[in-house]
């Protein structure tokens, strides 16, 4: 489903296509309440998906299914930054603070995370 979502977003939106074409990163997503995950390998306009978490990930997002869907609903604001002050954004931020959303590699890869968020966002 995540692969289909990225494909649809990139096809429908030239800005997301631009982000997708520029992104080189290995992104792990682990859905904690179903104990399943994927690794998305972005390579300048190509995406390969692997079941499970593969080594050498740039960032790894660990959260419940509902939170993963909330990440897709983050709005994007000025300068392509995700908005964390509306209802969805506050929900995501509070889960991050409470440890219910964990992002390994966050601090050293904020630009990558923002780009991934923009590609995922359906808003």
């Amino acid at each position, binding site marked *: *489903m*995540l692969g289909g*979502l990225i494909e649809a977003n990139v096809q429908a939106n030239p800005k997301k296509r631009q982000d997708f074409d520029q992104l080189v990163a290995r992104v792990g997503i682990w859905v904690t309440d179903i104990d399943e995950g994927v690794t998305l390998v972005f390579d300048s306009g190509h995406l390969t998906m692997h079941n499970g978490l593969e080594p050498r990930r740039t960032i790894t997002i660990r959260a419940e*299914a*509902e939170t*993963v*869907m909330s990440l897709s*609903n983050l709005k994007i604001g000025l300068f392509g930054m995700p908005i964390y002050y509306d209802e969805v954004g506050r929900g995501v931020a509070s889960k991050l603070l409470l440890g219910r959303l964990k992002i390994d590699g966050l601090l050293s890869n904020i630009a990558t995370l923002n780009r991934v968020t923009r590609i995922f966002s*359906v808003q």
Partner: protein
Amino acid sequence: MAVKAFSDEWAAQFKDEVNKSSAYKAAGKGWKWTVGLVVEAEPDKHFPESRGLVMDLFDGDARDIRVGSAGDAQKCDFVITAPYTRWKQVATKELDATKGMLQGKLKLKGDLPTIVRYTKASHELTECTTRVPTQWPDEQ
């Protein structure tokens, strides 16, 4: 009184539950597409033929929800397909619909970004199914 799963009576009660739900009314604002649920046959569970549930949902209201053939449901803008047992799991809260879609247990056809935008609405729709007292054919 409990009604047979995925029967006309079940569809009518489901529609009532959707229209009673203030949560759905708020979360479904702006939705304007038809949704088809395909319930695939499982003869060993006493559900011998596939059925479709055709839902005409508009702007937070259920204008019509009716039982038809699987083919009727497949003509909708969004189609969610799963075997009878999976739908039973959803309607009895054993399986969360969002998790089911992420795991591929519920197969979704349609514009993914649109349905992801309405995650809350689809969650509330499945909540409405849990409020319909249901007779399950495999339990009779």
